[in-house]
């Protein structure tokens, strides 16, 4: 009767337990019995008790009290006890336990045991859980076994040496000579162990690597023998002779051939041979081919071979086996940058894999497709990607949309295509796009001036179809607000004309405003758009007025603020409404107004930046401005500008003082009755006038107006101002930055000054603009202000 029946009986009982509690009870009883047995003297059942304990351990219960028993059993002279003892050591002891050191001596003795099976136990255990100390102690023994023992022991000693080298890298030198001679063994087990050991040594020590490069011809011979040999029943797997050994040799050749011309040359023929002769209908052959391909791509192989390797990967893509398709794509991903053209040839197959059922394969296909996008294939590839987007799994959507946007941005063949693509993505997966998409798209639309009509029609149609996708709705609202006049005009070259009435447009915007699907930001967009339409439509301005006034009491603070401001625009500043709501100029990607957080344009930033949106500049900024009124550039590290070369050209009635750079504007003006506005700057046909709107004890409101008498328009006009330290400055948004030619239009900007300490009010204004392709920049000083008009 086999003694292990008691073990099996225990297993049966444990499995028969119906509840977790019952199982725990059984196990507790058994463990108590085992503990009692351990305390007794040797009674011949120790190994079975340990085996029972190991089973309990596998179920997840604590078994540390068995550690000392392992130590005792390993020291026993009987093989059956040693066997279980070593098994227990590998399961219960690891290098962190103190008890593991106690078995070092037993292992040492067993390594020289007369029975090879006992030696094998010791080697296996040392190679599995040997600590660094144990390895140092026993390394010489292992080296002895590597040289002089039978092949059964040699192969185990080789892998044990691998473990030792991993734990104590310096010991690698000890094993190098022995491992070299092992390469001439015929036994596959030993050969395999030797190759693994040499690989480990070469990976850790560059000098050893150099040494073993000389072994490349020998390795090539061995490999050739495996590939070209006939059927060998002992090592054959699905027609491949010892695929395990072949793969390890290929890996070693890869390490030896990396960055080395000679070694790479020596293996070129072999790799070509393996690649062509290996039958890949089963996994074993595919594994060898896969390793070959990896090796070819990693060493300095000739280009013909590289193309062959990529073609093998391409063939793998068509394989029925999903695993092979998957690893083919991971490999292609690694080489798509270096061998781009070769991978491009397989683009069709890769794109087909987007339709695979398996999620991992889909993900790989997506990564590869995005890497393969180029100017040549952008149109066809984008069609496939958009198709994929409509059916792709949710976890891949965000990645897909951002990939599509990047690709579109880099390779868009035309602006219309670009806009169409982004719109398509927004309608299909608008909920998964990044936040910067909305400002990016708006910026793109503004640059495509010829397409404004087409874009706004398309967006309007999308808006009335569905208002749930926030990003799309925001862009649509913005465009309708901006280009509503084009929408209402009806004709459009690029799409079929459709008659859109003003009421329809306002209905659409109101729906967005009132819908509970709209986020607060979206409603903000819709309200602003409605307001902008007030200057672009003719009949329904009253409707807009009423919408705006309703939202003046909205709970949402942001909407309320906007509505109140727009109301004010209707009531008090109606004369400015047209200018304020004018068509926006093309947004530069790097301008400060661009809200996507990219670095705003250069040196203007530190000064009082004028924002294009309707936001109010925070009053904290003046405090950071340069303290010294006489040095506008003092606080920021900008390159020195031609200023303070102030304009000293004649300014009409003003006479320049002898005080050098400073202008004394009012010097000559005191005599005549003060006109409401004063010219503070006049040069290159650009005139800047200052008008005081309101003045109190502690502050004033002034308006700067710029006009242009040249016959070409002035662009990129910006005004910056500096005031003495205790004065607070607030610049409102300018009405625009383009001054039409021939004095046909003007740009105005309101400035609020708050002077609580009642210091003498002075202001320095810097004017920048582009006139006839020249960038001009001038600074004027204003020492006294005209009194207000009323």
């Amino acid at each position, binding site marked *: 009767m086999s003694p292990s029946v008691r073990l099996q009986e225990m*297993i*049966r009982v444990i*499995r028969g337990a119906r509840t977790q509690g019952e199982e725990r009870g059984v196990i507790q009883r058994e463990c108590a019995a085992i503990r009692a047995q351990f305390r007794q003297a040797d009674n*011949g059942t120790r190994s079975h008790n340990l*085996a029972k304990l*190991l*089973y309990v351990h*596998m179920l*997840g219960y604590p078994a540390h009290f068995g550690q000392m028993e392992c130590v005792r059993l390993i020291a026993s002279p*009987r*093989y*059956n*006890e040693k*066997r279980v003892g070593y*098994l227990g050591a590998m399961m219960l002891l*690891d290098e*962190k336990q103190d008890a593991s050191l106690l078995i070092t001596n037993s292992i040492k003795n067993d390594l020289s045991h007369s*029975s090879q*099976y006992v030696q*094998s136990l010791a*080697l*296996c255990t040392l*190679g*599995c*859980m040997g600590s660094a100390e144990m390895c140092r102690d026993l390394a010489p023994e292992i080296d002895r076994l590597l040289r002089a023992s039978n092949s*059964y022991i040699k*192969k*185990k000693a080789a*892998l*044990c040496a*691998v473990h030792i080298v991993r734990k104590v890298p310096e010991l690698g030198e000890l094993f190098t000579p022995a491992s070299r001679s092992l390469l001439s063994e015929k036994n*596959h*087990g030993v050969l*395999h*162990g030797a190759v693994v050991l040499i690989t480990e040594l070469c990976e850790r020590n560059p000098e050893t690597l150099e040494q073993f490069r000389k072994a490349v011809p020998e390795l090539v011979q061995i490999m050739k023998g495996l590939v070209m040999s006939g059927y060998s029943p*002992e*090592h054959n*797997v699905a027609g491949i002779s*010892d*695929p*395990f*050994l072949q793969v390890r040799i290929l890996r070693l050749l890869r390490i030896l051939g990396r960055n080395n011309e000679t070694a790479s040359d020596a293996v070129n023929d072999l790799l070509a041979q393996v690649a062509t002769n290996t039958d890949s209908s089963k*996994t*074993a052959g*595919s*594994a060898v081919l*896969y*390793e070959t391909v*990896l090796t070819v791509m990693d060493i300095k192989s000739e280009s013909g071979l590289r193309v062959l390797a990529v073609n093998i990967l391409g063939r793998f893509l068509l394989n029925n086996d*999903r*695993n*092979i*398709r*998957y*690893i083919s794509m991971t490999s292609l991903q690694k080489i798509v940058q270096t061998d781009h053209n070769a991978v491009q040839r397989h683009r069709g197959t890769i794109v087909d894999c987007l339709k695979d*059922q*398996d*999620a*991992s*394969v889909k993900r790989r296909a997506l990564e590869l497709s995005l890497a393969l996008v180029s100017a040549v294939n952008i149109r066809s590839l984008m069609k496939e990607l958009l198709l994929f987007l409509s059916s792709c799994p949710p976890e891949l959507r965000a990645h897909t949309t951002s990939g599509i946007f990047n690709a579109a941005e880099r390779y868009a063949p035309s602006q219309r295509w670009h806009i169409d693509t982004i719109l398509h993505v927004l309608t299909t997966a608008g909920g998964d796009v990044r936040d910067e998409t909305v400002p990016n798209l708006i910026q793109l639309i503004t640059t495509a001036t010829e397409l404004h009509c087409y874009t706004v029609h398309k967006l309007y149609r999308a808006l009335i179809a569905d208002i749930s996708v926030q990003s799309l709705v925001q862009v649509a609202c913005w465009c309708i607000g901006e280009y509503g006049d084009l929408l209402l005009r009806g004709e459009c070259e690029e799409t079929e004309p459709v008659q859109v009435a003003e009421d329809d447009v306002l209905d659409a915007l109101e729906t967005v405003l009132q819908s509970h699907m709209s986020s607060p930001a979206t409603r903000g967009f819709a309200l602003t758009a409605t307001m902008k339409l007030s200057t672009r439509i003719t009949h329904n301005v009253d409707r807009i007025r009423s919408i705006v006034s309703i939202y003046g009491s909205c709970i949402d603070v942001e909407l309320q603020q906007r509505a109140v401001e727009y109301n004010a625009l209707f009531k008090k500043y109606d004369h400015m409404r047209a200018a304020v709501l004018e068509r926006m100029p093309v947004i530069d990607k790097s301008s400060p107004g661009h809200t996507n957080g990219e670095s705003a344009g250069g040196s203007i930033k530190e000064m009082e930046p004028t924002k294009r949106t309707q936001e109010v500049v925070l009053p904290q900024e003046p405090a950071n401005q340069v303290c010294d009124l006489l040095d506008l550039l003092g606080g920021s590290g900008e390159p020195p500008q031609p200023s303070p070369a102030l304009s000293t050209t004649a300014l009409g009635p003003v006479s320049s003082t002898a005080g050098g750079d400073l202008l004394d504007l009012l010097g000559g003006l005191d005599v005549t009755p003060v006109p409401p506005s004063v010219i503070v700057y006049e040069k290159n046909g650009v005139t800047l006038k200052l008008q005081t709107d309101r003045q109190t004890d502690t502050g004033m409101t002034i308006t700067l107006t710029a006009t242009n008498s040249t016959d070409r328009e002035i662009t990129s006009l910006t005004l910056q101002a500096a005031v003495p330290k205790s004065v607070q400055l607030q610049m409102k948004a300018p009405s625009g930055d383009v001054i039409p030619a021939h004095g046909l239009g003007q740009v105005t900007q309101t400035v609020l000054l708050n002077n609580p300490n009642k210091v003498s009010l002075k202001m320095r204004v810097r004017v920048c603009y582009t006139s006839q392709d020249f960038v001009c920049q001038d600074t004027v000083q204003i020492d006294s202000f005209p009194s207000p008009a009323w």
Partner: protein
Amino acid sequence: MTMHFLLLFSRQGKLRLQKWFTPIPEREKKKIVRDMTTMVLGRKPRSCNFLHWKDLKIVYKKYASLYFCCGLDAEENELLALEVLHRYVELLDKYFGNVCELDIIFNFEKAYFILDEFLLGGEVQETSKQVVSRSIEASDMLQEVSERPRSR
């Protein structure tokens, strides 16, 4: 094939064999086992057999009611790992004769002994099926002899 660990578990997530080739604290081992079982059991029936987990590649294969799951370094050859798992199953099959899960449950220590003749330190130690089988037989014979009341 540098394996970090090899796990066998049933469809219900019960562990049948665990072999660890790197020193890992007990708590960490339990966590890995939990993660592996959740990940592998959650896979759809016709998915590919490779996964990513932290910085390891996980290769798994289902044989009847048992999942064989191993964790490899990122540079390893996954297809060869599938062959390694298959070879182990073949060895078990030869030993037990049409192996099934119950064989491995009631003779778990034998499953370990077979594994220890096939892999050592996470690497394949013998590439011939016959040699491994013969070694096991010889070891079993030696065990039987040493179990007799008056051994040697």
